[in-house]
C-alpha cells in the first residue's frame, strides 16, 4: 500500500521539520541572548572564535556560540558526583528537554499545503485536544528539574529543584486558567481551528486575533509562561548568585547543555503557543487561501505556494518576536524574592485569571 507509506513519509518529514525548527530556533536564541545581553550591558560579547582566522572585519560570535561551545560541551568528560543516582542523573536532563520539544507537535505552523490531489495539514499532529496535549506535555518538564536536583546529591541542587517544582506548579494553575478564557472565546481545543478562526477581521480592518478578545488572558499567560521557563525575573531555581546553578549545579558537558537548551526550547514553546492563541498563529492579515482580500473589496490572487510560504514566514516571525521580547525581559528586570514570586502567582495572577474567566463568560453571554 504505497499511499500509507507516502502518508507516513509526509508525517515523518513534518515531524523532523518541526523538531529541527524548535532546536535551531533555540540555538539561534542562545546567540541572540549572548549578543543581545552584551548589547544591553554595553559589552562586546562572544567574539573570539572565527572561521577565516580573523580576516573578516566584524565578528558576530556565531562561531563561538553555535559551533565552538557545543563541540566543547560534547567532548567534555561526563562527571557524575559520588553518591549521585546514575540513572536519575541521566534521566533529569532528558526529561527536561524531551517533553518541551515534543510539545510543538500540536502547534500548527501553516494552513494547508495542496500538492496535486493531496492536501497536507501543516501541523505534525492535528489533535482535537491540542491545548490539553500541550499542557500535559509542558507540565511534565517539572520532572526533569526535580530528578536532576534530587539525583545530584548536592544541597544546592536539591534546593534549586524544590524551589523550581514549587514555582512551576504554582504558575501552572494561572497558566491553565488564562487558557480557559481563550477556549471560551474560540469554543475549541484544536489549535489549528483556533488559528483558522483568527483569519476574520473586526470592522473589516482589524485582524480578529485572540489578543483582541483576551488582553488580560494574554498578559497572565505570558507572565506565567516566563515563570515556567524559570528565567529572570523568576530564576530562583537557578539563582546563580545564591544557588551556584540551582538544580544543574552538578552537571557538566552535554547534560548541562541539555538543561540550557531546555530553557530556550521552553521559550520557543511558550512563544509558539502565545502566537497561536493570541496573535493569529500563521495568519497574515488580509491573506486568504487564494490571495489577498484587502479592505474595500479589492482582491489580488496569489500562487498557492507563495501563500503557504508567507504563512510560514509569518508564524516564524511572530514566534521569534515573542522570543526576543522574553530575552529583553530577562535582561531588563532584577530577580524576585521567593515570597514575592509566590505572592504574584497565588495572590495576584490566580484571582485575576478567575476574574478573567468570569468577565469573558459575561461578555460572551451579553454579546449573543
Amino acid at each position, binding site marked *: 500500500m504505497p499511499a500509507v507509506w507516502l502518508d507516513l513519509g509526509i508525517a515523518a518529514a513534518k515531524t523532523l521539520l518541526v523538531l529541527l525548527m524548535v532546536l535551531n530556533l533555540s540555538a539561534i536564541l542562545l546567540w541572540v541572548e549572548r549578543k543581545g545581553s552584551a548589547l544591553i550591558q554595553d559589552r562586546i560579547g562572544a567574539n573570539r572564535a572565527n572561521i577565516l582566522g580573523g580576516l573578516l572585519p566584524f565578528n558576530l560570535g556565531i562561531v563561538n556560540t553555535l559551533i565552538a561551545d557545543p563541540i566543547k560541551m*560534547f567532548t567534555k*568528560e561526563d562527571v557524575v558526583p559520588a553518591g549521585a543516582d546514575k540513572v536519575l542523573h541521566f534521566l533529569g536532563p*532528558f526529561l527536561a528537554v524531551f517533553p518541551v520539544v515534543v510539545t510543538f507537535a500540536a502547534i500548527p505552523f501553516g494552513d494547508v499545503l495542496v500538492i496535486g490531489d493531496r492536501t497536507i495539514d501543516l501541523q*505534525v499532529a492535528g489533535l482535537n485536544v491540542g491545548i490539553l496535549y500541550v499542557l500535559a506535555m509542558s507540565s511534565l518538564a517539572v520532572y526533569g528539574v526535580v530528578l536532576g536536583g534530587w539525583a545530584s546529591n548536592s544541597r544546592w541542587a*536539591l534546593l534549586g529543584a524544590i524551589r523550581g517544582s514549587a514555582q512551576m506548579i504554582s504558575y501552572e*494553575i494561572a497558566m491553565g486558567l488564562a487558557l480557559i478564557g481563550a477556549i*471560551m472565546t474560540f469554543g475549541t481545543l484544536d489549535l489549528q481551528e483556533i488559528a483558522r478562526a483568527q483569519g476574520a477581521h473586526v470592522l473589516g480592518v482589524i485582524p480578529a486575533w485572540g489578543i483582541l478578545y483576551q488582553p488580560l488572558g494574554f498578559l497572565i499567560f505570558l507572565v506565567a509562561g516566563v515563570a515556567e521557563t524559570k528565567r529572570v525575573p523568576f530564576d530562583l531555581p537557578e539563582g546563580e548568585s545564591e544557588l551556584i546553578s540551582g538544580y544543574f549545579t*552538578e552537571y557538566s558537558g*552535554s547534560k548541562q547543555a541539555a538543561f540550557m537548551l531546555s530553557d530556550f526550547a521552553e521559550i520557543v514553546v511558550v512563544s509558539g503557543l502565545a502566537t497561536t492563541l493570541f496573535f493569529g498563529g500563521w495568519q497574515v492579515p488580509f491573506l486568504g487561501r487564494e490571495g489577498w482580500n484587502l479592505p474595500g473589496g479589492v482582491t489580488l490572487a496569489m500562487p498557492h505556494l507563495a501563500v503557504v510560504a508567507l504563512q510560514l514566514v509569518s508564524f516564524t516571525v511572530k514566534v521569534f518576536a515573542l522570543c526576543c521580547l522574553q530575552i529583553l525581559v530577562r535582561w531588563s528586570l532584577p530577580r524576585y524574592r521567593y515570597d514575592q514570586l509566590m505572592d504574584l502567582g497565588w495572590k495576584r495572577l490566580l484571582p485575576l485569571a478567575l476574574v478573567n474567566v468570569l468577565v469573558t*463568560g459575561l461578555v460572551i453571554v451579553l454579546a449573543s
Partner: protein
Amino acid sequence: MLDQYVGVLLTFALGAVIVGGMVSGSMLLGMRRRQHYAVKDEVFECGNAPSGPARGRFSVHFYLVAILFIVFDVEVVFMYPWALVFRALGVPGLIEMVIFIAVLAIGLAYAWRRGALAWY
C-alpha cells in the same frame, strides 16, 4: 480518530532519539579514561568538604504548595469541558460556573487567611 496520534508517536520517537543522543553526547564523545579521585567526585559546596548527606529536611511550606496545587489544578481541569461548550450552555452555564468559582474563591480566601500562602 486515532490517526491524529501518528504524528505524536513519530514526534516521541524522533524526539527521544535526538534528545537521548544529545544528553548522552558527553558519555560517548567525552574523555575516555575517566579518573576518579575523592576530591573530584565531591559535590560542590563552595570549596568546603560536604557536611553530611544532601537529602535532608526542607521547609514544610513546599508540601503545602504541592497540596494546594493538587486542589486548584483539579478544579481548573473541571473548567475545561465547561469552557469548551460554554456557548451552548448560555446563561445557566454561566450561573453554574459563578457558583463553582465562588466555592473555589472561598477556598483560596481560606488558605490565604490561614497563612498557607505566606512565606517567611
